[in-house]
């Protein structure tokens, strides 16, 4: 699988919903070098998921720009693929058909599709289920199919929108390690949106905290830890505590404004 990462540059990104008053986030600047796994942490409603949808090209920004290796993002592309909170698999298809569906939208030969699909299925270790209907799989396995469906596109950037939050703790932990390991092996970038600090510490090279209304990046922290990362490791615990302090600090970010409004 021929994948490489990309340099991401987000400048002055602003979003406001047409139907609602107010700004979701205002003038967000963010950079991520090639091959980095970046986590965006924040409470519900801070705009992190909207930011990810804009990076995926599924929503339009009101102002600002996103560039990958200097090229602006102007819509969805197989180069930047998003994995959602739920797998959203096509239930009338087998695992193999689901994984290859994105390639059938392009002009790929049958042989190329088959070879790339088989490789992606091997990466997520679902070879024994290739011909199974996806409805016969467990939640974790379905999310692995969604991961393979993204990986088969050979993206430069994988966008993860709280992708494991609906899974049980064991499956979640397993997938967090596996996705990071695959990303590091293949070299693509990750932007992970989550409100789970443990997930950020296990999966990311760097974490930024988004808070406020309108939202913005209020803090960032390098997660410089060796792989594989173990939750019980004192270094992981220390970084987790540090990130939690920053998160709580960020949670108070709005308080003066709220107090002023109340007063």
């Amino acid at each position, binding site marked *: 699988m021929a994948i490489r990462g990309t340099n991401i540059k987000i400048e002055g990104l602003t979003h406001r919903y047409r139907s609602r008053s107010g700004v979701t986030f205002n003038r967000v600047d963010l950079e991520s070098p090639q091959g980095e796994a970046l986590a965006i942490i924040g409470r519900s409603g801070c705009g992190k998921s909207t930011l990810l949808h804009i990076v995926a090209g*599924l929503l339009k920004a009101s102002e600002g720009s996103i560039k990958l290796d200097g090229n602006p993002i102007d819509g969805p592309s197989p180069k930047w693929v998003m994995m959602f909170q739920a797998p959203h698999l096509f239930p009338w298809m087998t695992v193999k058909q689901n994984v290859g569906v994105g390639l059938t*939208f392009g002009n790929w030969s049958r042989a190329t599709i088959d070879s790339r699909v088989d490789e992606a299925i091997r990466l997520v270790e679902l070879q*024994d289920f290739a011909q*199974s209907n996806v409805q016969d799989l467990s939640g*974790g396995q379905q999310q692995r199919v969604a991961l393979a469906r993204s990986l088969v596109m050979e993206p430069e950037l994988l966008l993860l929108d709280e992708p494991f939050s609906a899974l049980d703790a*064991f499956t979640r932990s*397993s997938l967090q390690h596996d996705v990071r390991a695959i990303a590091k092996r293949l070299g693509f970038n990750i932007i992970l949106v989550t409100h789970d600090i443990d997930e950020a510490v296990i999966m990311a090279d760097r974490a930024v905290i988004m808070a406020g209304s309108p939202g913005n990046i209020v803090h960032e922290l390098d997660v410089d830890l060796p792989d594989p990362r173990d939750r019980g490791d004192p270094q992981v615990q220390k970084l987790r505590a540090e990130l939690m302090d920053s998160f709580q600090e960020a949670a108070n970010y709005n308080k003066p404004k709220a107090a002023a409004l109340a007063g």
Partner: protein
Amino acid sequence: MTSQQVAMPRVSGGIYANMCDVLQSSGTKVLHFVVGLVALLALWWLAIFLVTLDPSNSQFKDFAPRAAFEALPALWQDGIIPDAISSSGFRLGMGMFLAIVIGVPIGIMMGRSLWFQQLTNAPFQFLRMISPLSWEPIAVVVFAGWEEAIIFLIAVAAVWPVAFSTAAGLAKIDPSWFKVARNLGAKPWHMVTRIILPAITFDVLTGIRLALGVAWIVIIPAEFLGVTSGFGYAIQDSRESLEYSSLMALLVVIGAVGFVLDSAIVMLIKRYSWHRG
């Protein structure tokens, strides 16, 4: 990969047990099928028996099951049944084809466009409530021959179940499938061919099943007038020539053909349905 809950792939270790289950299930189904039909025959026989206890009703003996089944071979050998199957089948096929070709796109538009759905809801509900047979005098005037008029009546009867079932199928589509497909680079025609059509196949086929039932009911009275072929004509002919055993035999064949058609659609629904339950 660390430990996690997994669904195991299906293995062939229990083939014998699976076959036993399938055979047992099939046996039960066949038993229910036979018992149901025998009960229907018994009721039919009992009704005629009770009516003909009174000697003044002796003419009803020709309506009994035995007389009907005795008339069947002659009707087949004289070509009456094969001709009726061919003529009515052609009209049904053409009418259903038109209903599907018109109904599915209308249903897709109703399901995809709120504007279209709101605009067409009142006129479609209004038209749907008009009995298909009441269009017959107009159809005879508008079309050059009775053949076309009957096909039109079948299409009018069948188009609404197809359109409304298709629209209901569209309404059940998970909007996330479109988002995922767009994210993976799907073009608008991919949305129709790879997402919408497979997603609504179950509902379209269910609509076709309903439509087929209505069309099969409508075709018989529609063939009472104007044509000299088809089941409707054959029944009318038997009534006028007082061949009641033939009339009852034709009713048996109409029921059997309808049952076979419905079973074929049910098989298609099972084949193409992705719903689990």
